[in-house]
């Protein structure tokens, strides 16, 4: 029998029993779609964490310390780090202060918590430490810091919240009643989070004196040039601070790196991937058993039909070819529908679970789930057909 004939025959058979064909496909559809979605959500979550760290800035060392004689530990470290410019790219305090920001009729007191911009005191190296890039206007300079200029730079989201879509550069807003002129706006770097890293207003840290924030920065951030430089910079900083505090007698100080957190976080997501991958594997297996079962049953219950076909002259190979094509079509169509559903479900999960992250299913998982289902469907669709077509026609005819 020619292949085209087998395809026609299989089509007639599938369309002749639409309900049964659809139910057979359903196992495949759900199996593939669920595996795709579960794995995508996990890897999306993982990616989101990594993106968040990248946006926050990597290779950061957080330092804290103070000197009992009232001198500024931060300014000494700041000065020291400027001499390490082959290892350190920037130093900045990151202190949140002020609680009420106004511009025109906009007033953060009447905003949702998520929308309220955070006011942060930083140095002229704040942007480089936090992976911000300027979108327009200019950044804080060392002069702004030294001269107590009442200026600020906005994160993209803060600019949107306060100024809608008008140009904020040159406008003046007030923080706790003190006016600050907007110098520039940073480019958006964290669009997927509701609690956005872009919802910030950066003031020169010396402006803290206008806001009753004091002038001593017990905690500040040092950004190393690359991951390899982090341990070396930490060692240098610890040495330097120990020297300043005479090993803790005249002050205190230490530093730690977010690298450790990231490694922990990576470890955790790896664990989660393993666990959820296991769940996905089990659901695929269960789906596979379902596919096996339904193919086995639907083809076995057609033993009589196989007998009829044999009795009126079908060769064994024609029967096997027909059932092979039929199983391939059901599994193929089911598989494609499953991929489509999995794709939609993945997108939906991205929107609903992961704050609108645009998720794409993993190609290997998709193809793996598809291949697994199709191979199982073929195997267990063919097996009973091969068995039934090998019987003497009269035995197959007797089957009920």
């Amino acid at each position: 029998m020619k292949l085209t004939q087998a395809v026609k025959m299989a089509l007639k058979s599938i369309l002749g029993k639409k309900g049964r064909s659809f139910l057979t496909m359903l196992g495949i559809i759900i199996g593939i779609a669920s595996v795709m979605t579960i794995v995508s959500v996990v890897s999306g979550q993982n990616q989101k964490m990594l993106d968040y760290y990248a946006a926050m800035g990597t290779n950061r060392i957080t330092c804290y310390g103070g000197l009992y004689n009232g001198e500024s530990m931060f300014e000494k470290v700041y000065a020291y780090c400027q001499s390490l410019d082959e290892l350190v790219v920037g130093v900045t305090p990151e202190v949140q202060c002020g609680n009420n920001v106004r511009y025109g009729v906009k007033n953060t007191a009447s905003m949702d918590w998520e929308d309220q911009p955070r006011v942060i005191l930083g140095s002229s190296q704040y942007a480089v430490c936090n992976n911000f890039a300027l979108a327009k206007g200019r950044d804080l300079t060392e002069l702004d810091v030294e001269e107590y200029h009442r200026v600020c730079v906005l994160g993209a989201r803060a600019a949107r919240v306060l100024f809608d879509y008008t140009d904020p550069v040159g406008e003046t807003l007030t923080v706790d009643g003190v006016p600050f002129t907007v110098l520039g706006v940073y480019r958006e770097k964290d669009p997927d989070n509701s609690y956005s890293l872009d919802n910030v207003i950066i003031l020169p840290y010396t402006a803290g004196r206008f806001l009753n924030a004091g002038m001593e920065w017990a905690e500040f951030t040092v950004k190393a040039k690359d991951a390899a430089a982090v341990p070396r910079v930490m060692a240098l900083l610890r040495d330097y601070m120990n020297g300043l505090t005479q090993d803790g007698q005249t002050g205190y100080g230490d530093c730690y790196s977010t690298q450790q957190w990231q490694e922990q976080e990576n470890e955790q997501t790896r664990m989660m991937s393993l666990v959820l991958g296991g769940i996905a594997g089990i659901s695929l297996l269960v789906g596979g058993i379902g596919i096996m079962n339904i193919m086995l049953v639907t083809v076995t219950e057609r033993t009589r039909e196989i007998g009829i076909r044999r009795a009126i002259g079908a060769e064994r190979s024609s029967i096997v070819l027909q059932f092979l094509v039929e199983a391939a079509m059901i599994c193929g169509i089911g598989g494609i529908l499953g991929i489509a559903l999995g794709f939609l479900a993945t997108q939906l999960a991205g929107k609903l679970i992961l704050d609108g992250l645009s998720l794409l299913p993993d190609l290997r998982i998709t193809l793996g789930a598809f291949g697994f289902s199709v191979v199982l469907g073929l195997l267990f669709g063919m097996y009973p057909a091969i068995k039934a077509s090998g019987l003497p026609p009269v035995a197959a005819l007797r089957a009920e």
Partner: protein
Amino acid sequence: MLIELRDVFKIYGEGLEREVRALDGVSLSIAAGEFVAIAGASGSGKSTLMNVLGCLDVPSYGDYLLAGRDVGELSDRQLSRIRSRKIGFIFQGYNLIPGLNALENVELPLIYQGVGVSRRRDMALAALERVGLAGRAKHRPAEMSGGQQQRVAIARAIAARPPILMADEPTGALDSKTGLEVLDFLRQLNREGSTVLLITHDNAIAATARRIIRLRDGRIVEDKRQEVDWL
């Protein structure tokens, strides 16, 4: 001889206590163009005989020569060819495929013979026309009466114009009027040259055949020829 059986046995559960000899040393020969009724009570082995004659089953012992060829020597492929080209079956339970309509059911043996699309459509329609069901070509078996289904089954059996027709209780599930129509039709096909084997437990139906082979417990107990008035 078209059909020749030599000492054929079909034994189920051989050597066991519940051994059943469905055919117990049957020898017979049937010439081309005969109209033979194989009669016997239920369990007499007549269906087993038809299955063996129709190459649907293989005998346990003995030889079956069909048109001079020993069927026992043939491969599965050759047997399939014989079933599709030489023999048309009419089963008691119609044995139509429920998912296919009348025309598609009738086309099926032609498909397995490798007849081209348009020619096989013509042949299938012609066969349906002969049984008076051309208007029902697109109906599924479930949408037809028992008599109509049996006529579709006859159309399927004759579509490929096989030289031998085998009918297993073709009137069994029909009322007497439709049953007679089916018998008339078989006679007509016989007049046109087909060899017809009619299996029945009904003596009245068997009595209408030119030759009656009577079976009991797997053995031929009577083989008589008679003149009948076919009108």
